[in-house]
């Protein structure tokens, strides 16, 4: 890519270091259930202290992958290395991983403190040590006043915290979180996301989270692996996943995006200048500043995020390319943003989002208006997959 991606400063990026040793390594992992292949020849490296997300729709194999790391499933082929050691065949109760279950799986017949102490008791720690660690965990998740309660006497958010405290109590090398915030309402979920990041940072643990919620993955992760039908489509930082998806699938799965199919008309790569690809998207000429592996004549897709499309009533100066003319067909008011659905003459819909920067009651653009949509050369991208 000509332009390296944005100035997202990262001090923590072991995956860019060729000498870094992965903490967890999935090596040619395949998992089959009868005829169904849940995970197909998958390779993945996760580094120490990383907050890593497996993201994908249900049935993509992300939970299977996590359960193989916890030891509840054995891979059909391939092996899993934890700190360089093959952990195949090690039963779950001897693995240095702990898991927070989607259903929380709190023991209903034990009090909160008993739940948290359960893992510690298996290690034959002294009573004093266990009590001290339980107190520490209760403090960490701010549930000191609820130690004697049974899980049935807690709200959803409190149960989630108990589950987190219980899985953290043994200081696992890796904490696995299966849809950890799925059962919480939106507000609580957002708060908890930041708390999770905070706890992960404070304790310096490696977190592996499985989720189908792209916003959650974007917020908490150092890196995200987007999965589809048992394979990883892309592994990257949240910003790269959002701004430089490597395929139609990832682009469409993460956030909102306009995708237009088209063909490559020409490619230019002047020395000293950014390479430019010119496309024809069924009559709509588009130029994109991007390096592209596809050649002239190939069918590709042009993708652009709604917030990168500018919407105006006046005709812009240059309408030769990267400009479309259409009618406002619908407006979605989201509070912070308004999304305009603009219908082109041939019926295609392009979405443009505009930040609602002032509290104007009168908005200049309304239903039925004829508008111009424009975007700069570096706003969209060409997807070959």
């Amino acid at each position, binding site marked *: 890519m000509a332009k390296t991606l944005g100035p997202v400063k990262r001090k923590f990026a072991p995956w860019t270091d060729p000498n870094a040793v992965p903490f967890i390594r999935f090596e040619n992992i395949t998992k089959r259930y009868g005829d169904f292949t849940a995970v197909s020849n998958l390779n993945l490296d996760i580094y120490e202290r990383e907050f890593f997300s497996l993201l994908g729709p249900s049935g993509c194999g992300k939970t299977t992958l996590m359960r193989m790391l916890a030891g509840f499933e054995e891979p059909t082929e391939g092996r899993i290395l934890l700190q360089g050691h093959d952990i195949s065949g090690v039963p779950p*109760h001897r693995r240095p991983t702990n898991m927070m279950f989607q259903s929380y799986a709190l023991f209903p017949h034990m009090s909160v403190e008993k739940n948290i102490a359960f893992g510690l008791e*298996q*290690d034959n720690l002294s009573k004093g040590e266990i009590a001290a660690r339980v107190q520490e965990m209760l403090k960490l998740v701010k549930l000191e006043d609820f130690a004697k309660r049974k899980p049935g*006497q807690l*709200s*959803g958010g*409190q149960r989630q915290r108990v589950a987190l405290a*219980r*899985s953290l109590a043994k200081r696992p090398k890796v904490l696995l979180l299966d849809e950890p915030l799925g059962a919480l309402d939106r507000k609580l979920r957002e708060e908890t996301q930041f708390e999770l990041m905070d706890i992960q940072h404070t304790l310096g643990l490696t977190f592996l989270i499985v989720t189908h919620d792209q916003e959650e993955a974007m917020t908490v992760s150092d890196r995200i692996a987007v999965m589809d039908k048992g394979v990883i489509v892309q592994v990257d930082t949240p910003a790269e996943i959002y701004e430089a998806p490597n395929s139609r699938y990832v682009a469409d799965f993460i956030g909102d995006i306009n995708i237009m199919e088209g063909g490559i008309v020409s490619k230019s790569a002047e020395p000293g200048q950014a390479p430019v690809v010119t496309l024809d998207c069924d009559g709509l000429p588009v130029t994109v500043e991007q390096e592209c592996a596809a050649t002239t004549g190939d069918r590709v897709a042009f993708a652009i995020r709604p917030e990168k499309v500018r919407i105006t009533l006046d005709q812009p100066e240059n309408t030769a390319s990267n400009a479309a003319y259409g009618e406002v067909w619908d407006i979605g008011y989201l509070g912070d943003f308004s999304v305009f659905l603009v219908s082109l003459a041939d019926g295609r819909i392009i979405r443009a989002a505009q930040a609602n920067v002032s509290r104007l009651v009168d908005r200049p653009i309304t239903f039925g208006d004829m508008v111009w949509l424009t975007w700069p050369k570096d706003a969209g991208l060409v997807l070959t997959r």
Partner: protein
Amino acid sequence: MKSSRFDPVVLTLGFAFLYIPIIILVIYSFNASRLVTVWGGFSLQWYREMWSNQGLMDAAWVTARVAVLSASIGTVLGTMAALALVRYARFPGKTLFSGMIYAPLVMPEVITGLSLLLLFVAVGVDRGFWTVTIAHTTFTMCYVAIVVQSRLLTFDRSLEEAAQDLGCPPVKTFFKITLPLILPAVVAGWMLAFTLSLDDLVIASFTTGPGATTLPIKIYSQVRLGVTPEINAICTILIGLVTIGVVAASLASKRTELRRIRDEHVALRGSS
């Protein structure tokens, strides 16, 4: 909807049909007359005589021991069978096994009793206390298996996975997590097994031997010689025991339900 006058009538008739025979039996157990069908005033003499009837008391004691023992063994075996049926997704002969566990439920007792008798004769065991106990274990374990199986079907397996994930070996997990949670079903299964063993006549009469006469056999053989008010007395005591058991069980489950509701109230207050 307006309730019709017809409803209470139907209800009364239904209950009368169910309970009048039992009420008559209870009333006549307090009869002073020796004739079962003629009321001769209130008396507790049949209870006293029942108490001093050594044969009846021996039979009651045998029945109690058989019932406790066979219910306990049947509960252990039945619970294990239920675990195998629910937990192991596929093993050779699973369909056959799960079909076979229901078979004794629908099998005529005469056939069960006869086949067990033939088995004991073939093996050459002396019939008596232990053969009755084994026979009762065989048929009560199916009932336990079915009660426990239905509980296990709704059991959240992630609880066991969580325990193992936290370092608890599988067998310990069963005793620390699974068993405490399915205990109400196991206890219910035990009580069912106990009651079934207590009132079984057919299978016991096939498999028993000298010196191990159970109460139902004793009652049945005495009635053939004519109903004495003593029988009424012991039956009244049996009815009393069963009633206490049923009421206690339903009170216990009611209390669990109440506690669950109270927990939820606490949770709602806690979350606000």
